[in-house]
């Protein structure tokens, strides 16, 4: 079954950009150009996710979010906003959104976050997992033991957390900012390529010379852990 995404965005260029990208990624897209119409659709509840602009004619984005949540609809919501300060982000998350993306954004970032949200929703529905596996790589979440093809790999706590996030999202792109938020719980820009250096260290530990690489760099987007095919 194809998944339906609701895009509530008044700026036609941005809406086209997002809708086109989503359709190419295999989603069905409904669009609403103003707040009231958007709220009307969103209350339907039949969407896999809602992408919501913060500043809309007719109704403020946060007000729509409030109304959706008040109506008991728990469809995942990603807010798009030109208001990029950390305070605004916190306000958006507190209002009940599942993620907050600052304009201008790369579509790959939006897609990665959208997919991560849906996996998170699916994972919550399942029972707690005790281990994560990707090809030869396995991670025991209880004993904190990581092995590749039977060989134990020693990881620092932060490296362990980094690998865990990648494993949970395996097969999908995880962006640098997503890693910064998930692994370090920071929402600011640390400037230099801090994340890249951590990834390259992790890569050295899990992808030994001679082994097929599991950790891939996705150009212009982020990183992805996947089985060699």
């Amino acid at each position: 079954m194809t998944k339906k995404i609701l895009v509530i965005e008044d700026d036609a260029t941005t809406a086209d950009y997002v809708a086109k990208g989503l359709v190419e990624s295999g989603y069905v897209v409904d669009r609403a150009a103003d707040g009231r119409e958007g709220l009307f659709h969103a209350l339907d509840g039949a969407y896999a996710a809602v992408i919501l602009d913060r500043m809309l004619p007719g109704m403020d984005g946060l007000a729509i979010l409030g109304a959706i949540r008040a109506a008991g609809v728990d469809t995942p919501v990603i807010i798009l906003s030109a208001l990029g300060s950390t305070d605004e982000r916190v306000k958006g998350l507190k209002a009940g959104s599942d993620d907050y993306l600052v304009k201008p954004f790369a579509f790959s970032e939006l897609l990665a976050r959208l997919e991560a949200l849906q996996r998170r929703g699916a994972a919550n529905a399942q029972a707690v997992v005790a281990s994560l596996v990707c090809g030869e790589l396995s991670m025991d979440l209880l004993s904190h033991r990581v092995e590749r093809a039977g060989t134990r790999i020693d990881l620092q706590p932060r490296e362990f957390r980094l690998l865990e996030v990648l494993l949970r999202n395996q097969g999908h792109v995880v962006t640098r900012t997503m890693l910064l938020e998930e692994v370090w719980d920071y929402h600011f820009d640390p400037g230099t390529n801090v994340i890249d250096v951590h990834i390259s260290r992790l890569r050295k530990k899990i992808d030994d010379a001679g082994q097929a690489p599991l950790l891939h760099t996705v150009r212009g987007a982020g990183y992805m852990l996947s089985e060699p095919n």
Partner: protein
Amino acid sequence: MNRLSWTRLKHSTTVRFVLLYLALSVAGAVPVLFVTYHQADRMSRDHFEAQISNRKANLLLTHRTGGIPAVAQGIRDRIAGGAAAQTALLLIDPSGRRIAGNMKTWPATLREQAGWTEMRLYRDGHVQPELFALSAVHFRSGHRLLIGTVIDDRTRMREALLIALVGALILAVPIGLAGSLVLVRFMNNRIGSIGDVAARIAAGDLSRRVDTDGTNDPFDRLGDSLNAMLARIEALVEELRLVTDALAHDLRSPLTRIRASVEKATMQPTEETQRQAIDATSQEIDGMLRTIAGTLEISRAEAGMGRENFAAFDLGALTRDLCEMYQPLAEESGVSIAVEKPREMTFFGNRELIGQAVSNLIDNALKYGSDGGNIRIGVEETETSILFWVADRGGGIPVDRREEAQRKYRRLDGARATDGSGLGLALVRAVARLHGGELILEDNSPGLRAVLRFPRPADPPEATL
């Protein structure tokens, strides 16, 4: 005057003030007049009392020496001599018949008593009743004597006093009105001059100031605070102008580079080189977005926004966390980075902004101080402050350039070669100020020691044994 304008007038401060002043002046006049009236009335009453008791004493003395006939004779003499023009006199025998006097009959309600009573009586030859102050004497023989004095004078005086009172009240209204108008005008002039300055400011002349006279009265203090506010506004506007200029300048160069690289990309022969050129363009755009985000974050911090997200967090843990985050990067540049004497330190503030500031300082140390090979980070607590510092062993910043280094878009000569927005230290300083602290750049001889100093919260120190 129609109703609407009266309603508006009623709410005008000037009208309210005038009315209040008027009410106060009337309220002040009334008690004075009241006291005057009572005092004057009492004086005239005392005068009548003295007259009556005097006459009574004389007649009683006459009675003691000559009995009733002497009293009767005395009365007759007084009436005949004209001494009784303002007097009522009557002597009756036990059966009520008149023996002597200038009245026909004894008033039915008059009894012997101490002091005197007021009563309206007809005297012989008078058509109108007159008001008398009366005193009666009952002799043992059954004869009775009435002595009275006309008190029309007192009544007239009362009336005159009342007229004076009303007159004074009527005068108090215009005088009060005039006085209050003068006062209000004086006040309006002072406030008006402040308003004029405000209007000039609103019209764009930010250099205008309110006149102050140094007396430190409320008007003067108002003027002083307004002037202080205006100075601050002028400084902010100037700052804004500088930032706008600098931002325009700073955005123009990356935009020029972006434009050039887009043109270059369109001319690339192969797909691979085209992709590389587009990637380069994306990086330029990202850099520009970072500059804008940084500028906005600084402006917000400088405007005092972000305090609503203040909460307690462990500054020590944040420092260790960020140090660990930069560890791999430092190792790649051959620098050792470590937290000196790690400890817990509860700090009340905006965790994200402090984190950003700390990471900017570490980033700076890595960029400009890595040739020293050693970066130390520390958190300390003194009696009065909480200190966070990052120290490197690199080239440092000369004393006379330290202030410049903290300004927006100012990049010292050596730094222009590396990429960066020139906002790092400016943001650190803005965040420090948002938390009531400051950024101090010190000599680490050699190298730079950047210190964030925050005042310690004023809670009582925990008891130590």
